[in-house]
């Protein structure tokens, strides 16, 4: 078995979700690494967009900020935040990757506060572009380490919409139709959402983990797909690209 760490399998699995010719709105860190890996493997024509305005750059290295020079290096266009967000709003952007301090069974995310809003125990950055991407992009994915403090029954603050309260609640909310959470990729498993209840459902478990491990590291009850796959671990080529070309200084994969 090839040796890899949690971040490397999350990024490799995420990259495989991005088909050639798709558009993806990404942030810095793991999402950007996944998009770069997809470009170097199965999706050379993947269109990467950064919320500050960079469209389809030829990334020379991992950006530090979603607005730094690298995000529009040899790009198709150096646009504006409204260029990106309006493209998302018009339905031009297929995927986005997000994260957060907390996630619930409907894929809603909290990146605003722990405790109450008026007098928070911990203040986080807030939505940034996360709510916008999750509202507009057709398929929202989350890459996050799995533990029961992060996968919670109830969010302290619902910053970014997943399937809201499940069922038809998102369709009735006013958010663009047919957009929503698609897959949740953790260090242990891949989850999707059961189509009617919109509850999180385990569809694939990574090598070395059991269904019990996955449930034990989640505070709400996970649904189980009829047939649960075993995740294909990162290939030697994926690991080589990640370690040598995409993240040689291990900014992301060294976390």
């Amino acid at each position, binding site marked *: 078995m090839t040796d890899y760490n949690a971040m490397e399998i999350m990024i490799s699995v995420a990259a495989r979700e991005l088909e050639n010719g798709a558009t993806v709105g990404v*942030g*810095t*860190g793991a999402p950007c690494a996944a998009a770069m890996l997809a470009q170097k493997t199965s999706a050379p024509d993947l269109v990467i967009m950064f*919320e*500050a*305005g*960079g469209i389809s750059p030829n990334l*020379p290295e991992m*950006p*530090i*900020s*979603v*607005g*730094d*020079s690298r*995000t*529009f290096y040899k790009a198709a266009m*150096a*646009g*504006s*935040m*409204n260029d990106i*967000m309006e493209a998302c*709003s018009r339905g031009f952007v297929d995927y986005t990757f997000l994260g957060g301090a907390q996630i619930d069974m409907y894929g*809603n995310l909290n990146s*605003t506060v722990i405790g109450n*809003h008026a*007098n*928070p125990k*911990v*203040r*986080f*950055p*807030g*939505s*940034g*572009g*996360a*709510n*916008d991407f999750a*509202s*507009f992009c057709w398929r929202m994915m989350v890459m996050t380490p799995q533990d029961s403090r992060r996968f919670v029954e109830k969010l302290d*603050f*619902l*910053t*970014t*919409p997943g399937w*809201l309260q499940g069922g038809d*609640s*998102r369709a009735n*909310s*006013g*958010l*663009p139709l047919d957009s929503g959470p698609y897959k949740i990729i953790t260090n242990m498993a891949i989850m999707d959402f059961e189509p009617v209840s919109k509850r999180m459902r385990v569809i694939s478990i990574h090598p070395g983990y059991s269904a019990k491990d996955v449930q034990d590291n989640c505070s709400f009850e996970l649904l189980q797909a009829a047939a649960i796959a075993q995740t294909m671990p990162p290939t030697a080529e994926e690991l080589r690209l990640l370690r040598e070309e995409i993240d040689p200084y291990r*900014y992301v994969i060294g976390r």
Partner: protein
Amino acid sequence: MNIIDQGQGELFLDPDPDKARAFFRTKNRKLVNKVMDLKEAVAKFVQDGDYLAIGGFGANRTPIAACHEIVRQKKKNLGFAGHTSTHDMEILSAGEVYNRIDVAYIIGLEARGLSTCSRRYMESGKVKVTEWTNYSLAARLRAAAMGVPFVPTRNVMGTDTIKYSAAKTVECPFTGKKVVLMPALYPDVSVIHVHEADIFGNARFKGIAVADVDLANASKKLIITTEKLITSDEIRRDPSSTRIPYFLVDAVCEVPFGAYPGNMPYEYFSDEAHLREWLSVEKDAEKFKAFLDKNIYGCNNHEEYIARNGGAEKMRELRAKELLLSKEVSS
């Protein structure tokens, strides 16, 4: 229009376009020389209590020199547009110059981590907070730039983000769908850093615009800091490069390396070691005070700050990094 839902957050600024028009009517349209020292511009145009917006994107093409000057002059009770604010917010939080904030992105410095200083100030109870998102604030600036009281968007519905905002959800009179109305945001004063400007304020910058064109149009008072002054002839030889026309501008300040330690596209990359130093010294109150004395309060201007952090040699290094010179290969 039937209001379906509305946020309980405070709206810090009046979105009334007629009041904004009445103000803009008074702005001087004459071609006058607006060049002044940054110290003078901040003293003249940033008043205690003003609502301030900072251009660029956190630590990218951000007027850092102006943020230092605002802190150095001990401005207080400002409102602040926390739109993609990172290192700019860190500086303004160190000076505790604002007491109310529209939040889109705050506290973090993206991949670099979170600022202890910004977080401590935000958790101190001294700051009134209304929640938004990056697009929501960009849309609010767009509404102001259009001279209308709001623009409709389709984000935030169903979340606590709208609950703690000051947006309203209504039924669209054309389609019957729900839309969110984002109220126009007319900042009292903004600062935008550019590559080149003439003495009248015609300004051009390269790379991504973020929300700066709308911000320039929306702002009541506008300070431009520029890497360099160029002639008006040069502006008029290539008018399609002008991103901000002169009549929006109140002051033009020539500040070479004005975005340092942030990134200025095509000129210099961010000084990551120095930004890490900021994040690390913030954790120790005494060290942080000494650090601020050295880098802000004890400096007369941005040149002195740069001189204390590596000077011309450091700028050469950051330029090489920006241009990826190490990746150039000979044939």
